[in-house]
């Protein structure tokens, strides 16, 4: 049996005692991190930039005249896998078709984006708003008025006066 055939499991004494250099190396590493910039996003003050393709709260788009683009074809309600969309069409005699009621239950919605994809008029869009909060379940049933402008639900921190004083 040659020397090279022996597999040594126990470390030699010299290798075992090597811990001073790694400790100092660790101290150097933490010191380097001490001077680098924090990665924290301070949430209510700062917000993470989300992707252009982010799927947030729904929005019904409008044309230049301010009317809804939606023609109440019902495709979005048909494709919705969570059955979150509820709409009632209304049609004037020989005139245009528009939704009389358009309710999206944001708590049922799984934000898959199928409704946006299926819409032939590009009337429903998913906005980038992801932090809507409210107190009741009813408030999450978005009707036409709430769906018209999603930006009104962007979370704004209301600071009390004493907080301005304290910084």
């Amino acid at each position, binding site marked *: 049996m040659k020397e090279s055939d022996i597999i040594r499991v126990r470390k030699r004494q010299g290798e075992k005692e090597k811990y001073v250099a790694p*400790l100092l190396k*660790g*101290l150097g*590493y*933490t*010191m380097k*991190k*001490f001077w*680098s*910039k*924090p*990665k*924290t996003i*301070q949430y209510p003050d700062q917000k993470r930039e989300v992707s252009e393709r982010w799927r947030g709260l729904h929005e019904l788009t409008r044309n230049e005249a301010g009317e809804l683009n939606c023609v109440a074809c019902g495709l979005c309600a048909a494709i919705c896998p969570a059955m979150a969309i509820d709409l009632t069409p209304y049609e004037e005699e020989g005139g245009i078709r528009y939704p009389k009621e358009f309710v999206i239950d944001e708590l049922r919605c799984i934000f898959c984006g199928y409704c946006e994809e299926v819409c032939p008029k590009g009337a429903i869009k998913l906005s980038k708003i992801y932090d809507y909060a409210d107190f009741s379940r009813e408030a999450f049933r978005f009707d036409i008025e709430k769906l018209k402008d999603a930006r009104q639900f962007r979370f704004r921190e209301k600071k009390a006066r004493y907080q301005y004083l*304290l*910084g």
Partner: protein
Amino acid sequence: MSELLLTLAVKSVLVVSVCMLMVAYLTLAERKILGFIQLRYGPNRVGYWGLLQPIADGIKAFLKEELTPANADRKVFLLAPIISIAAPMLLLVVIPFGDTVTLFGREFTLYLSNPDIGILFVLGISTLGSYGGVLGGWASGNKYGYIGGVRSTAMMVSYELSMAFAVICVVLLSNSLSLVDIVHSQAGVWNIFKAPVAFLIFLISGLAELNRTPFDMPEAEAELCCGYNVEYSSMKFALFFFGEYTHLFILGCLTTTLFLGGWHGPLLPGIIWFFIKTFAVIFLCIWQRATFPRLRWDFVMKLEWKFLLPLAIVNVLATGFIVAIF
């Protein structure tokens, strides 16, 4: 006579209040430094840059519900936090913050007292501080608290030895037990250059004595879920917490006094040099806390009995030999 008493009273109040304020802000400093090292901000909501955080913490601690477990030993349970804060505060008496200053045509010493056995007093009282943890853990009537207390005892018994041996080196070099004389003897060369090994031993065993992170056996979160202070709440817990940080402050002061030349330094006045050095040592303690993992319990004991203690004894013998020859 009355003038002397008045000076003493004013000085005591000043030392205690200023040092306690610094200790309160040490908690903020520790959280901030740990935060920065972990790429976070640390507390920054209360006041500008989080500067009111210690006060907010204090108010919170006062308003919390206070609980005493049914099977706790009530008297000892109450006594333990008091001991753990009183012992380190007592040590502020002998810390020499600076040399004499002349104010209003009168000379003032920047320390409260200068006993001839200053360093023995420090060693004795700092050991008393560990009784806070020991008694608190034992009196809680909780298994985790009990194990924490037992560990605290073991740490106290073992690390006190190497700490005392490191201090003996300093005493040999400066020929005095008085802290003021020790600082005076370092006017030329600081003791850290004369006795670097003793400095390292002192710092390591000081950290162990403080129960800070690489050696925080009595309150190992992962194993004992908080150790000796597990049953404490409200202001009693805050006293433990505060006592620990006061101990840290005292360790900084002592390291400065014994090894880093106390108030000696160029240009700036002595007291400023003293606090610069103190906070450098405290920063080192916090920095290493963010870096090193906790040792296993048997390794902590092995480090002391098989490495630090023999090293300290050899160090004392070598220092004595060199002092005797030259």
